[in-house]
């Protein structure tokens, strides 16, 4: 089978979801083609061919010439596809000019020979809803978080056209599936949940957490408002007032750095909070090993690999109830789930957790580790994706 994956860019290290998926498909004899935005010097990735989308910036006359040539080649070699695409777009009442624009922008997709065209994020399918049918491929779309929880708030009904044409929808959690239905998709039989997965062998360096006076709390997250870090800092400010000894480390970088630094300063936490910036994976794993508690108090979260990794490493996790987090962690069994946007509750939970008996904590973390090994392995995910493409 030839499967086209449409992604914003060639996956990075941290995008284990995509890397693992591509490896899994490739190892089972399927051919994977990655369609990525922008121009790339990378021609192959994990055995997949990489095809760059048309360039949109640069030397304008040269660009115009290049894209015109590409479009003419498309027209000559794939006339039937172009004709079908045109007809489908006209049925959707697209104007001639917008159809032409879509053909130029998607000529790399329209000239592909594929069995499946899979958009890695919901937003990547927008303005491309008819491409799959035009090239005779089935269409799949993945929804992960921002694309279904946030994007439609700014762009209501943006997926209406997509819902009519998609063959399968992949979601990473039940809550994401609920959001898909809330945004107008009705056919539940076409929705498949495949959770993220982690390398449980790599994240298994379980270090016995030393009982110390000072709790080492860790979060690994982009510095973005959706990660709820400001609420986390407020909870920690309450803990500080109660005399709880802790050190909080945030691993990650992002646009909210100034906001969070100021919040830490204003809340009197400068001596208790460390912003490490982005770190090498090996260093991150070490920090995970040293942590007493892992906190992910997101406002919006598809699922969260960092929480899976923390659980696999035997760390007690306290998370918010944002979308996939309450499936990621089973409240009271493998960790704790606290209502989001409630720093008082988060502070109380952290304090309560630190007072748990050691055997209670151990029981919980052992259950979490076992669950990670049984339900969130890379092999499991690869198997589910194979079924996704091969079964009706």
């Amino acid at each position, binding site marked *: 089978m030839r499967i086209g994956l449409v992604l914003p860019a060639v996956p990075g290290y941290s995008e284990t979801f995509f890397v693992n998926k591509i490896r899994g498909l490739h190892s089972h004899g399927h051919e994977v083609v990655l369609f990525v935005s922008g121009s790339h010097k990378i021609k192959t990735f994990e055995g997949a061919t990489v095809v760059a989308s048309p360039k949109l910036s640069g030397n304008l006359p040269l660009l115009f010439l290049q894209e015109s040539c590409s479009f003419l080649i498309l027209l000559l070699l794939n006339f039937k596809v172009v004709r079908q695409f045109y007809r489908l777009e006209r049925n959707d009442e697209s104007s001639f000019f917008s159809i032409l624009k879509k053909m130029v922008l998607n000529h790399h997709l329209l000239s592909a020979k594929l069995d499946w065209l899979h958009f890695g994020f919901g937003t990547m399918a927008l303005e491309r809803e008819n491409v799959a049918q035009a090239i005779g491929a089935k269409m799949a779309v993945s929804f992960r978080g921002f694309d279904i929880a946030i994007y439609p*708030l700014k762009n209501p009904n943006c997926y209406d056209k997509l819902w009519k044409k998609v063959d399968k929808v992949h979601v990473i959690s039940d809550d994401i599936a609920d959001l898909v239905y809330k945004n107008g998709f009705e056919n539940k039989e076409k929705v498949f949940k495949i959770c993220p997965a982690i390398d449980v062998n790599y994240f298994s360096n379980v270090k016995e957490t030393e009982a110390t006076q000072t709790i080492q709390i860790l979060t690994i997250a982009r510095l973005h*408002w959706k990660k709820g870090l400001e609420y986390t800092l407020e909870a920690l400010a309450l803990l500080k007032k109660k005399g709880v000894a802790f050190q909080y480390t945030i691993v990650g970088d992002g646009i909210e*750095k100034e906001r969070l630094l*100021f919040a830490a300063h*204003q*809340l009197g936490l400068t001596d208790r909070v460390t912003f490490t910036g982005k770190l090498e994976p090996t260093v991150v794993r070490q920090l995970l090993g040293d942590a007493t508690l892992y906190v992910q108090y997101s406002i919006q979260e598809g699922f969260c690999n960092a929480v899976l990794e923390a659980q696999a490493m035997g760390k007690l996790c306290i998370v918010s109830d944002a979308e996939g987090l309450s499936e990621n962690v089973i409240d009271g069994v493998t960790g704790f789930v606290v209502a989001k*946007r409630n720093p008082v509750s988060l502070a109380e939970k952290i304090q309560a957790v630190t007072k748990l008996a050691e055997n209670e904590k151990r029981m919980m973390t052992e259950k979490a580790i076992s669950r990670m090994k049984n339900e969130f392995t890379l092999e499991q995910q690869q198997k589910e994706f194979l079924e996704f493409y091969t079964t009706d």
Partner: protein
Amino acid sequence: MSQKKIAIYSGEIPSTTFIERLVDGMANSGYRIYLFGTLKKKKNYGTNVEVVAYSNRFEKTVQLLYYSFLLSVFQRKCKNKLDDLLAQQGNDSYGTKVKYYSVLYHRPDIFHLQWAKGVGDWIWVQEFGIKLVLSLRGTHVTISPIGNVYWKELYSQLFPKLNGFHAVSDATGMLAQTYGADATKIKTVYSGLDLERLPFVQKGKINSPLKIVSIGRSHWVKGYSYALDGLAILQEQQFDFEYSIIGVGIDEELLVQRSQLGLEKKVCFVTAAPFDAVLLAIREADVVLLSSVEEGIANVVLEAMALGTLVVTTDCGGMNEVITDGENGFLIPVRSLLAIAEALRKVADLSITEYHKMTLAARKTIENQHSHRIMIADMKSLYESVLKDPS
């Protein structure tokens, strides 16, 4: 005595409302005002204002050539000195020279820089006998040095060298002292309002649902997320209200928060509106809510106080220099949702007599502390003290 020359520099012409009022006020106070920078829109200033600016690349080139020529002919030594200075700093591009040459040629007595982050760019003026005065306003002073150690170090290095500071509040002035600003060179000059454009109108009643408005740009410092969390508490308590935030437009974070808290029917986000529309919105509201985590002194609060609309504001920056809790408004702790909810309830529970008493007191505060006349007089006093200072 020759007319003193003051350059009021914000980089763009025209600039913010406050700066434009300052320009007009100073021009009418006997100074010759120079405006350098990029011309965004043509504006007719009075006879005492000279605009030395460019609006496109061609004009920029012409200005560079013109002032290079004038300096070469009439101020060769100074030009060479400046060129050497820039070469030493590795900052001698044409872009830099076009900014600096006109200032050097016109040699104002005071270069009044409006934004702190530019202090590194303009410290050179002191080498040529130009006094450098800095306005302490906005996040440049309150947030940037905390968010980035570069600014903290720059301010700590250069603030001790400056000839004068205009602080928008006492609090901002004290903050500048932590970066080495000389306390004797700091003058608090409160923002002055054109009170004729802001006539006080006594309200007839407090509405139900309570009409709440916030006005300001979409930025985390405005603390709107706290406002929404606070209003969610009121909604749970079945307290009826309508809340508009003017100036945010499509803010992803707030859209998500509004949706998650189920506040879509009660909270409305509006894109930036013209000044008159904003004044109307303030008039029609029962309360203006300022939920900021940091401020100098928010102009919108001053405007609300002038117009007769009660204010609930967080106690950040210099806000407590304007509002006395329970007397001319309500002052609440920063980052406290409960305090926001309680204060808004207090407003709703006021009798109309109590409301009038507080808003009248607010208007008095503005008349006594924030008139345009007082602002101009205070700024003049700052300039005169800087000009007289021999150091």
